[in-house]
């Protein structure tokens, strides 16, 4: 057990899957000698060699096509897209090819690909470097989308993703990379896919969040605890598929819910959670469903991020509004 950052936890997971399964391969732009632009693959080429961890030409569709072909020939690829905004270039290979591989071949050919990519704002990067595109990818059948909120889950979920025989988009929050540390067990452990976690138990209201917003929700829970309001925080962890049961169980207890996401409000994860509740659990509620999300603009340039991304303050306002309904 050691204190590790989100990045160190990810490196740890990659080290374990490379060690465990000789068919795993890490590749992408600058992942070799440079260890990735964020150093997530630091030291892995040195340890496992250029055959297992290697740099590619700078072309996202090519990288993901390479993953498809390697998957077809028995390999377990873990490609990296340097920033999530660059995945626009690879939509066909992800959504048009890999995600439907099992379906089109009735399971006789599959694409066991884990696509790692950083996303999310608050670090003042250049355009296309921070976009939250999970809303895009959660609409793709055959593709899992995993978004850990802390270092412990990041390691366990990444190992589960690589071991999964279907494609997974594993989204790493840029802001969390170095801003958080957890006690991380040495060696292998897994965190299950498709399962939400009750990050904090409470009785008065439920906040459903994922990624970096989970930590904002936890701050709100701390602040409201001082006023004797007990907030339950649910961390979705996998945002496609969504674990509705865990959400329903919580709102049966609290009867109130606020759904939080960093991405734009239109469509996507929060909308899916809201519609699942509206369809199957609306009678558990005694107030409207509250939502906190970024506005439906194009993702802002660096200096606009801090006013655009919803943080604890906006969440607390919405929680109070729903509590006082």
């Amino acid at each position, binding site marked *: 057990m050691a204190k590790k950052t989100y990045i160190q936890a990810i490196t740890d997971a990659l080290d374990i899957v490379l060690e465990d399964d000789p068919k795993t391969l890490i590749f992408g732009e600058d992942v070799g000698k440079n260890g990735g632009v964020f150093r997530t693959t630091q030291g892995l080429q040195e340890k496992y060699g250029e055959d297992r961890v290697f740099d590619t*030409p700078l072309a996202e569709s090519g990288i993901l*096509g390479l993953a498809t072909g390697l998957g077809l*020939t028995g390999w377990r690829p873990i490609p990296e897209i340097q920033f999530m905004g660059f995945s626009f270039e690879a939509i066909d*290979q992800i959504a048009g090819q890999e995600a439907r591989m099992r379906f089109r071949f*009735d399971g006789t050919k599959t694409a066991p690909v884990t696509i790692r990519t950083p996303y999310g704002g608050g670090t003042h990067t250049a355009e296309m470097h921070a976009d939250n595109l999970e809303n895009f990818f959660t609409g793709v059948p055959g593709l899992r989308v995993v978004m850990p909120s802390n270092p412990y889950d990041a390691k366990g979920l990444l190992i589960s993703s690589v071991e999964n025989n279907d494609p997974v988009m594993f989204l790493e929050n840029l802001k969390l990379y170095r801003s958080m540390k957890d006690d991380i067990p040495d060696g292998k452990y897994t965190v299950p896919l498709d399962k939400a976690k009750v990050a904090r138990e409470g009785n008065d209201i439920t906040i459903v969040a994922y990624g970096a917003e989970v930590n904002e929700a936890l701050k709100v829970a701390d602040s409201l605890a001082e006023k004797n309001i007990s907030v339950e925080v649910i961390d979705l962890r996998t945002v496609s598929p969504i674990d509705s049961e865990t959400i329903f169980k919580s709102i049966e207890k609290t009867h109130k819910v606020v759904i939080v996401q960093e991405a734009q409000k239109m469509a996507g994860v929060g909308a899916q959670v809201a519609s699942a509740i509206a369809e199957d659990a609306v009678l558990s509620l005694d107030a409207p469903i509250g939502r906190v999300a970024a506005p439906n603009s194009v993702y802002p340039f660096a200096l606009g991020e801090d006013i655009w991304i919803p943080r604890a303050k906006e969440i607390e306002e919405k929680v109070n509004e729903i509590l006082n309904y």
Partner: protein
Amino acid sequence: MANKPIVDFEAIKNNLSNVSKPIQVLNENAEVTDQDIFDSFSDDDLVEFMKKMVWERALHEQTMNFSRQGRMGFYAPTEGEEASEMGTVLAMKKNDYLLPAYRDVPQLIQHGATITEAYLWSRGHVLGNKFKARSMMPQIIIGAAYDEAAGVGLGIKKNGEKDALAFTYTGDGGTSQGDSYEGMNFAGAFKAPVLFIVQNNGFAISTPRAKQTAAPTLAQKAVASGIPSVQVDGMDILACYAVAKAARDYIVAGNGPVMIETLTYRYGAHSSAGDDPKRYRTKAEEQPWFDKDPLIRLRKILEDKKLWSEDQEDKLVDEYKASFKEAIKEADSAPEDKVSDMLKRTFEIPTPEMKKEIAKFEAKESK
């Protein structure tokens, strides 16, 4: 400033057109234009080539018939492209991977899929994709197979398979899609064993080759990736086979990828779904290509050698067509695809939501 331009761009551009003649063995008058390559084929080889082209032409005719009867789904006609398709695929070995485009169904069958499976693929039934061959299903996104072929090639190399490579096809239109360059560039950079084949049949649906690119040849599109490439007479099966075979030998020797552009023509429409070549082609354009028909020239050579006769060919066509009719009967008896099965094959481990949907559809389907 000097009057003379610093760089003579026009001369550089003109130099791009300075390309060698496409490789040919047998011209349209059935004259041998490359005796050395011609002599490398035995009489049996020549007969075998002819049989394959007759088979593909018969497959096309029968499939068009089925299509007119409303018994097919998506079908991309192959008539005219027999030399290009059969010539290249005959250079493949069973351990090679095939990444075909939608017009390359005959190659997929040659590589191990059954005709029944091909018909089921055309109709849009999942059982059409469960062939045992080392192959992807026919690719609809025209550049995608090139990207994937780079990965398959690299996978083969990493697996240590010495006598295997990836064969992949696209058309002239496919070379305009960025993925075709990314695939060639990746394969070149990784020295992956891949044979990229461009079947240049002159038209991407209705858009002529001349509007596709200013490049004088499509073969030279590989040059920027550091890949050797060559144009071949795509109406000459002997040339197509000889070049594909030579490329295969070169690639499996560890030299990295090759690209071949076959100059061919599709006689009919892009697909059976409705484009009308009369809207974008004239008889005057078409006739010279019909005159170059790949079957005519090889048939003449074989008849001169007393290795072939009209009777023999008619008999073969009847046999082939009977087998296609058998295959479609078999396809007719495929079980109906069920929504519950579609849900089950979306993920290995169904999501909780899907489990509910599966139960719902199973209940409906059992009624």
